C-alpha cells in the first residue's frame, strides 16, 4: 500500500553496531524532500560509521530528492560516514543514471549486501 503523502519519509531506523539502516517510504518529491533530508541529516548527527538508506519502498523520486541525497553525501563524507543506497526501483535507478550520479553514490542491490 502506498503511504500517505503526509507520512514520515523515514519509516524506521535500525542499528547494527555502528551501522544505521534507514528505511524510506513513499514518493520523495518536492513536497517531502526537505523533510527527508532533515531526517537523514539528524541520523548522521549520531555519527554512524556506515549509513544505509533503503529505498525499496520509494516508488518515485525527483531531482529534489536527488539534491537531498547529494547534500547528505556531502555531509557524510565530511563526517567520515560511508553512505550506501540500496533497493532502488528501476525508475529511481534511471534518475541516478540520467543525472550521472550512479557513479558518485555507492549503490547496492540489497540491504543484506550493504550490511555484510
Amino acid at each position, binding site marked *: 500500500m502506498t503511504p500517505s503523502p503526509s507520512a514520515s519519509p523515514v519509516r524506521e531506523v535500525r542499528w547494527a553496531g555502528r551501522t544505521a539502516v534507514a528505511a524510506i517510504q513513499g514518493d520523495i*518529491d518536492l513536497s517531502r524532500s526537505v523533510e527527508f533530508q532533515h531526517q537523514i541529516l539528524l541520523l548522521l548527527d549520531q555519527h554512524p560509521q556506515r549509513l544505509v538508506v533503503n529505498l525499496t519502498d520509494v516508488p518515485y523520486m*525527483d*531531482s*529534489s530528492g536527488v539534491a537531498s541525497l547529494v547534500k547528505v553525501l556531502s555531509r557524510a563524507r565530511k563526517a567520515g560516514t560511508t553512505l550506501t543506497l540500496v533497493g532502488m526501483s*528501476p525508475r529511481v535507478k*534511471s534518475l541516478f543514471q540520467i*543525472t550521472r550520479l550512479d557513479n558518485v553514490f555507492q549503490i547496492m542491490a540489497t540491504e543484506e549486501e550493504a550490511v555484510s
Partner: protein
Amino acid sequence: MKQDCKKPVRLSILSTPAHLPIVRAALEKMCEAIGFDPEAVGKIILSADEALTNIIKHAYRGADDRPIDIELAPLGEESLRGLRICIRDYGEHVDPSRIRSRDLGDIRPGGLGVHIMTHCMDELEYRPADGGGTVLTMVKDIQSRRKETRT
C-alpha cells in the same frame, strides 16, 4: 480504449506540491494507454514533474495558490505515435537563454531539472504566453527508444 485516448486531457492545478502526485498518476495512465513502454513512461512523468517543480519554485517563487494549466495530447491520426505535453503558467516569464542545464560533473544539490527534461524528451520549447507567463511544450515520440538503441 485506444480510440478514446486520442483526445487530449486537460488538467488545471494550483502551484502546490500536493498536486504533483495527482498529475503524475494521470500522466501514467495516459502514457500506458498510448502504449509507451515502462521506461519511457518513467521518463515522461519525471520530465513533467520537473517542469512543474520549476514553475512552483521559480515562476511562482513558492506560492502555492497560483494556476497551472496542463494539456496532455496524444499524437497521431491512424495510430498513436507519441504524446505532447503543454504546461502553461501565469508567473514571471522565463528567458529561454537563461534555461540551461548545469555541468553534471559539478556535484552539488539542484540544477538538474532542465538536464532531465532535455535528456528524457524528444522536443522541448519554452515560449512567452499571450497575456503573460510561459508555455512549455514537450514531445515524446513512441519510437524514440528504438532510435536511441540504433544510434
